[in-house]
């Protein structure tokens, strides 16, 4: 190993060549190359982690650039995994990379995670967070968890040397209605940078044994107050008794697969007479304004459960609302009520139709 390269950290009395060798011998899986994953990857790679795995299947979008600082305008539309791999190889040619061009699912999680010593969770949705927890508990792997929302961040190292797990803090996965998920969340660009870097620090400490790992402690960061608060919590032994993954973690993919753009829908509308479109806005909104080119049945989102019989389960169902949020919720509600339905959320809703034609 080129120790000269790492001289500025090996010279540290509490780190030294021994810790550097441990980094070299270690393997770390980073789930998600987004706001958290990018700073974590850049620093883990720079500091000399020998093997780095990356799980990611998204493409780069314009709204990513405000916080995912590795990507450039020229990368828009490209797969994140390709762009990030190219850059990390340039940064450190001695790292061994393993890339997984997929989302983490209950079908691949155990097989992927088993190949690594430690996981850094940089995912952006609850199903993946609970999946990572359960898979790490089953495989007895520690994981460094970071999560952000707005101006705040949370950080902890779970399942480390017999310590508590994510479920010891938050036993059950929140439903989609309880807490905003995925890209509905606002976040100030620099916040994931701070938390992702702290994840890299905790990962290095967990691997090398240097310092005190954030084990059994939850760090709460508030960027507006510039405050860091640490909450202590204990292991609930039942949470380490997990032997297999759940049958379902809900939709593990943040990006909703069952979605359709307004342009695509308009093509379908041109070719077909009968297209089943359900407008899930309120009755008032529906009467007040409906799109002339769309013949929709109005079932407000809170009435779906009681009126599911009005839907034709034999043909695709396109869900519409004003901006695409309630229709997304409608997809999830209907999916739970009847997994056989073919459901599509109309992305951007009525607003997008109007924007397209004005």
């Amino acid at each position: 190993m080129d120790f000269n390269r790492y001289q500025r950290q090996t010279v540290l009395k509490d780190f030294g060549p021994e810790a550097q060798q441990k980094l070299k011998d270690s393997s770390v899986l980073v789930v998600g190359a987004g706001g958290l994953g990018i700073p974590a990857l850049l620093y883990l790679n720079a500091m000399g982690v020998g093997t780095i795995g990356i799980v990611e299947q998204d493409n780069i979008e314009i709204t990513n650039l405000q916080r995912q600082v590795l990507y450039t305008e020229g990368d828009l539309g490209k797969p994140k995994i390709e762009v990030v791999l190219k850059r990390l190889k340039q940064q450190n040619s001695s790292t061994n990379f393993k890339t997984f061009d997929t989302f983490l699912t209950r079908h691949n999680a155990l097989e992927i995670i088993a190949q690594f010593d430690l996981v850094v969770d940089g995912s952006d949705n609850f199903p993946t967070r609970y999946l990572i927890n359960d898979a790490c508990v089953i495989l007895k792997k520690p994981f460094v968890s970071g999560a952000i929302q707005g101006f705040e961040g949370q950080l902890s190292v779970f399942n480390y040397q017999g310590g508590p797990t994510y479920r010891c803090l938050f036993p059950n996965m929140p439903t989609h209605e309880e807490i905003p998920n995925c890209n509905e969340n606002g976040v100030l660009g620099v916040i994931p940078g701070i938390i992702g870097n702290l994840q890299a620090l905790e990962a290095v400490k967990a691997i090398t044994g240097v310092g005190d790992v954030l084990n059994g402690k939850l760090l709460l960061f508030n960027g507006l107050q510039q405050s860091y608060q640490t909450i202590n919590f204990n292991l609930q032994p039942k949470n380490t008794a997990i032997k297999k993954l759940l049958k379902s973690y809900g939709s593990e993919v943040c990006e909703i697969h069952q979605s359709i753009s307004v342009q695509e829908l308009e093509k379908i509308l041109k070719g077909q007479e009968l297209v089943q479109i359900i407008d899930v806005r309120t009755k008032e909104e529906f009467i007040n304004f409906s799109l002339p080119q769309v013949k929709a049945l109005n079932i407000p989102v809170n009435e779906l459960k009681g009126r599911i019989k009005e839907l034709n389960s034999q043909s695709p169902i396109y869900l519409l609302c004003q901006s695409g949020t309630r229709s997304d919720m409608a997809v999830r509600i209907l999916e739970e009520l009847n997994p056989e339905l073919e459901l599509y959320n109309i992305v951007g809703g009525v607003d997008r139709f109007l924007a397209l034609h004005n």
Partner: protein
Amino acid sequence: MTILLFGVTKDIIGCATLSMPSSSEFGSKKSKTVKELKEYLGKMYPELKKLSSLAVAVNNSYANDDTIIDNFDEIALIPPVSGG
């Protein structure tokens, strides 16, 4: 009693910290548990009741429903966040 609010609880209640003076209905109660606090807050802010996984910390330690709290304690309401 001071209650620090994180994540979505801040949005629901509409501020970053909530003060419960000992003269208030809840503050003046003699013995109080985390469960009672949650029920009291749930009445005032019904949206809070929807949170199935809400961690409560008392003086920087994770608390259970039966943890006793008094007027000098600092409480934190901590929902999970998922963003990345």
